[in-house]
């Protein structure tokens, strides 16, 4: 109902140019700040590995992590081959 009223009065906030600006700004800043140095990426990789090791045995040499981006989003993509699952005490 409120939505309808907003539409009637031309205040569809979802389409206001401010929201467009917000979204464009969010993406452009993310892309600008994405410039991670190889050193930082290596640290991230080491940290990730330490967390995962508590749960499963992974093939460290084959592990790949990368930041991938397209027009709409940025993703941290990790490809981590699992060798064996650990037996967790809670199970």
């Amino acid at each position: 109902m409120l939505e309808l009223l907003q539409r009637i009065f031309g205040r569809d906030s979802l389409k206001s140019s401010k929201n467009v600006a917000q979204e464009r700004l969010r993406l452009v800043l993310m892309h600008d700040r994405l410039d991670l140095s190889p050193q930082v990426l290596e640290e991230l990789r080491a940290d990730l590995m330490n967390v995962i090791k508590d749960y499963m045995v992974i093939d460290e040499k084959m592990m790949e992590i990368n930041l991938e981006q397209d027009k709409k989003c940025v993703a941290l993509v990790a490809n981590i081959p699992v060798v064996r699952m650990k037996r967790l005490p809670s199970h």
Partner: protein
Amino acid sequence: MGEVYVITSGKGGVGKTTTTANIGTSLAMQGYRVVLVDADIGLRNLDVVLGLENRIVYDLVDVAHGRCRLRQALIRDRRFENLYLLPAAQTKDKTAVNPEQMKELCAELKKESDYVIMDCPAGIEQGFRNATAGAEKAIVVTTPEVAAVRDADRIIGLLEASEIRDPVLVLNRIRTKMVKTGDMLDVEDVIEHLAIDLLGIVPDDESIIISTNRGEPAVLNSDSKAGQAYRNISRRIAGEEVPLMNLEDGGGFMNRVRRLLGLRTG
């Protein structure tokens, strides 16, 4: 011993020079000893905004190269005897000054002033490095537009990589009506994106154009909303706690009543 501020933005045309002139003049009105430095070598314009363009004899490059003494190059303001300008050179050679010379210059200037305020050129090249070399604190100016905020973000990154910690933000040219109708980014949006402390907000105000035409900074005009905003900002720089200006008070009825009664809004 004074403090050295640099006023910077990355993007051109967002109001660095106007901000420098107004903050400097307002601090001088409060009684502080202020030196404004135009670090935009080759594109001198702070002198014009201050109305001092006819009085220039020597400039920053002359001082840096020892062609004159620092005192000879400083132009005293017509209105306030505690406000000085060190003008930029009009030389085409942007390498006429280096960061080391700027450091020495700032060290010299702050000995006998409370505030040294550096107007930084647009861009992130040599001019930026010169203007930030001797600065201890930074004020980043931006407007509520994607391009300006993006450049401000780059500048904040560069400032933090240098020795200048915790820059603060001035958000300039806010149009309250457009913010209300959802057609302009508002203060909270910009602050959230940039993750930086806010020093002040300045409304979009035609009186700025008039005061620039005349060479009289808007802070001298008690009716100017932008002038009021800059007076608030300079009081915050001096350590006072001043609440953010209510930009909606524009020409409303209550505001007119308040003005008639001689009351001023924050």
